[in-house]
């Protein structure tokens, strides 16, 4: 199984065809996969709150939208999550690279990692943490859950999770 293709396939199977991304090294393969395929419209954004604005518009235009981002940017999206996505009841899968966890080489990444789950909990955002490679099996159900309840939902993917796959995206 190619993990990057698995994420994109699950998005596509759930009708998610509008995805905005702000890059992270861990997510490079997924972003490349989105860019490659034509059943999903990929629109890079310059900042995560901007990306959520794009998703809000796409949602109101009848699309299922998602954002792919890094956890360090969670802080800049708090107001947007509270006053746009949650206030107007919009579904938004947030596939998040969870930097600053076990295996992290960059100390500064830990500084936002220690706040990540706390901020999500404070916002009452349903949060799933992919740690083992096999955790990805739940992704399809999480997408269905997101569009069932019309909420932003966070999927945190850490280095141990990504470390279970090789450079091609195959399980080690």
């Amino acid at each position, binding site marked *: 199984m190619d993990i990057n293709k698995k994420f994109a396939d699950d998005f596509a199977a759930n009708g998610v065809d509008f995805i905005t991304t702000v890059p992270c090294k861990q997510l490079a393969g997924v972003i490349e996969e989105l860019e490659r395929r034509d059943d999903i419209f990929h629109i890079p954004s310059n900042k995560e709150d901007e990306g959520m*604005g794009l998703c*809000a*518009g796409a949602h109101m*235009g*009848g699309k299922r939208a998602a954002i792919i981002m890094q956890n360090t940017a969670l802080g800049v999206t708090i107001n947007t999550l509270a*006053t*746009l996505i949650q206030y107007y*009841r919009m579904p938004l899968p947030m596939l998040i690279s969870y930097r600053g966890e076990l295996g992290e080489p960059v100390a500064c990444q830990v500084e936002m990692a220690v706040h990540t789950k706390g901020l999500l909990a404070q916002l009452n955002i349903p949060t799933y943490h992919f740690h083992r490679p096999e955790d990805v099996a739940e992704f399809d159900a999480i997408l269905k859950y997101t569009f069932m309840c019309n909420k932003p939902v966070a999927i945190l993917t850490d280095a141990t999770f990504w470390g279970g796959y090789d450079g091609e995206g195959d399980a080690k």
Partner: protein
Amino acid sequence: MIRSEVLKEIAPIIRDELIVCNIGIPSQELHAIDDQPTNFYMLGTMGLASSIGLGLALAQDKNVIAIDGDGSVLTNLGTLPTIANNAAGNFTLLIVDNGSYGSTGDQPTYAGMKTSLSKVAEACGCENVVECRAEDTGEVLEAALAGDEMTIIVCKCESGNAKMPVITMDPVVIKDRFMKAVQA
């Protein structure tokens, strides 16, 4: 002319178009002047009107006009490269540039000083940028709607606000009404 006078003048032109209207007094003014189901009022989230408008324009075929402000565009300048590089022919960004943060008490913005938003938009790659006097906004907007090219309009107007009531409609009602109008 101040923003509310511009909105009054363009109200008949934008009546049946999909509008994403900026947070604060702009939304209050548009709501009071001509409330329509085709209006999406932002109640929070300063800066994202242009992003929401672009997402909406890319997601469906109807014309979309985002009514934004100079202060709000400055707070989300990253929107302009995204708009330029994902040009949607059905999208018009109308920046009402009064050189001030109107909703917070008319503090001056840099757009009223050395910074030219139309030049910034051009430098970001927007190919069809029109800067106009407040008096000419209706005419420029009609031309933008008639064409099939994405247009960024920077309408230079005077600073000032009309006294209008706060919007008390529930956000979910605003969205539901708007989404039905999008689908109609």
